[in-house]
């Protein structure tokens, strides 16, 4: 192939894109048969008034699904950091989780 001599010649060029990671499929946790009597953790990532939003979610459950226990919990630090202590606590004490508002 020519190296771009005129407008009609075909030329060969290299692809500028990097190599993506190998994607490993992750399993989803089994879903709950019902929320009746269950404990849901509402996880506040502490970003852009997310706590205020989750309090409205909590109120919604109190009004419409009072058999569901909701517990509002803040992440231990900024939302950019993993929070294994909080995840372990939710795993030990909760049946499900709602995280919001994501960013």
């Amino acid at each position, binding site marked *: 192939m020519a*190296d*771009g001599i005129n*407008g009609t010649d*075909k*030329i*060969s*060029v*290299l*692809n*500028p*894109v*990097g*190599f*993506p*990671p*190998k*994607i490993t*499929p*992750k399993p*989803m*946790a*089994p*879903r*709950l048969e019902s*929320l009746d009597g269950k404990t*849901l*953790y509402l*996880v506040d*990532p*502490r970003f*852009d*008034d997310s706590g*205020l*939003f989750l*309090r*409205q*979610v909590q*109120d*919604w459950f109190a009004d419409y699904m009072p058999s569901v226990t909701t517990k509002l919990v*803040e*992440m*231990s*630090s*900024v*939302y*950019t950091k993993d929070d294994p202590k909080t*995840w*372990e606590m*939710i*795993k030990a004490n*909760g*049946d*499900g*989780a*709602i*995280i*919001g*508002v*994501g*960013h």
Partner: protein
Amino acid sequence: MHAIALDSKYGVPTVAIHTNAFDKAVQSVIRMHGMPEARYTFVPQPVMGKTAEQLRAYVEGKSPISGRPVMQEVIEGLTRPAEGDRIKEIKFERSTPRMVDSDTDENLHHLFLENNWTDKLPIVLPTEKKVREMLARTSRKPDEVAGHMRSNQFRQYWEFTVEKVAVNAVMAGARPEYFPLILALASSGVSARGSTTSSMAAMVVVNGPIRNEIGMNSGTGAMAPYNHANATIGRAYGLLSQNLQGGSLPGDSYMGSQGNGYAYGTVTFAENEERSPWQSFHVQHGFKPADSTVSIFTGCRSTAFTLGVREKFWREHVRNMLRGMDAHSAPTFLLDPIAARQYIDRGGFDSKEKMIEWVYENALMPAGEYWDYQLIQNYIYPRATFGEEPYASKLKAAPDEMIKMFKPDEIHVVVVGGETNGYWRIMGCNYQKTVSVDEWR
């Protein structure tokens, strides 16, 4: 991202609620993290600043993406079993081809533009000849892994070789003699196309002999488009960042709400070591004067500037500028040599460290104002409430008590400019690292 971990790693059924501005980004992240059936719903953007009543209306309302009730999607997300069908959409073994299909010059330019491989300005097509010429200026092998990069902490790293960096350097119009410096930038793993809603750009400061070897500008107009090396190295850093991290596409892998003009060429210049009265930046960070280095700053957004360092009120002027900066991004002082010498005359700062100490002591704000900033609420307040110093101590201050805005190790000074006048500016940004250029020769 946290929802995926809680769901898959800890076995807790989880639903994430996002704002609708993140629709494409959420799809992209869950796909790349191998969980395409992750459960989520959307409420309108923004949540920030809304009243309790308005937020309750969001909860009671419908997803602006699906049109279905938000809480219905939440409940279904916790109770509806996984179907396993969307997992088939993922290609788990992928590799990027080395070459693009041959075509005419015009068609290839169109292809690169349409594939979002450019910064929307014309590029130089990376022919094998031009890439070979670039590769000839490093001792590293073309297929050697040069680094890994991602657009933010919620994305997965992509990998790239020395040749891939060369391809992007050619596209930017860089000369082969710049290549070791461009490789050093790529190897840093710091992206110049970081994805944050705050629209950050990067800044690059070059020190040591490489500055003069390749004709970089540290004098008049150093930060403006008047020097080939400054311009194309900065552009190459931007192009390689977006292409080697897997893209930078608005709404998908780039979420900067307003964007940032600094990102066009990245703010790239050499420190004016010859005219600086102080130790050069790379020596401050553990390198020898004869080492060639490149230092990277991110989060460049807010800028304040003024002329001179006045005898009577210079302290007040600087304090005013610091109070006007974004309280979350620490100040890096970019001083023309005239201004640098004035700081010595006015403040007695015979080292950068003494000036930094003064700035640290004088960048003050009432605690109540400081903690009320949304960025401080998002990124500092959570750390303070869980005891991280010095934030925890600052949190104990009364609302009217003046507290320090920054930490001393976040404040930096760089000398740049051609002494046509004593202008100087403060760039709000975060120093990331200094990388050796010599290791990539």
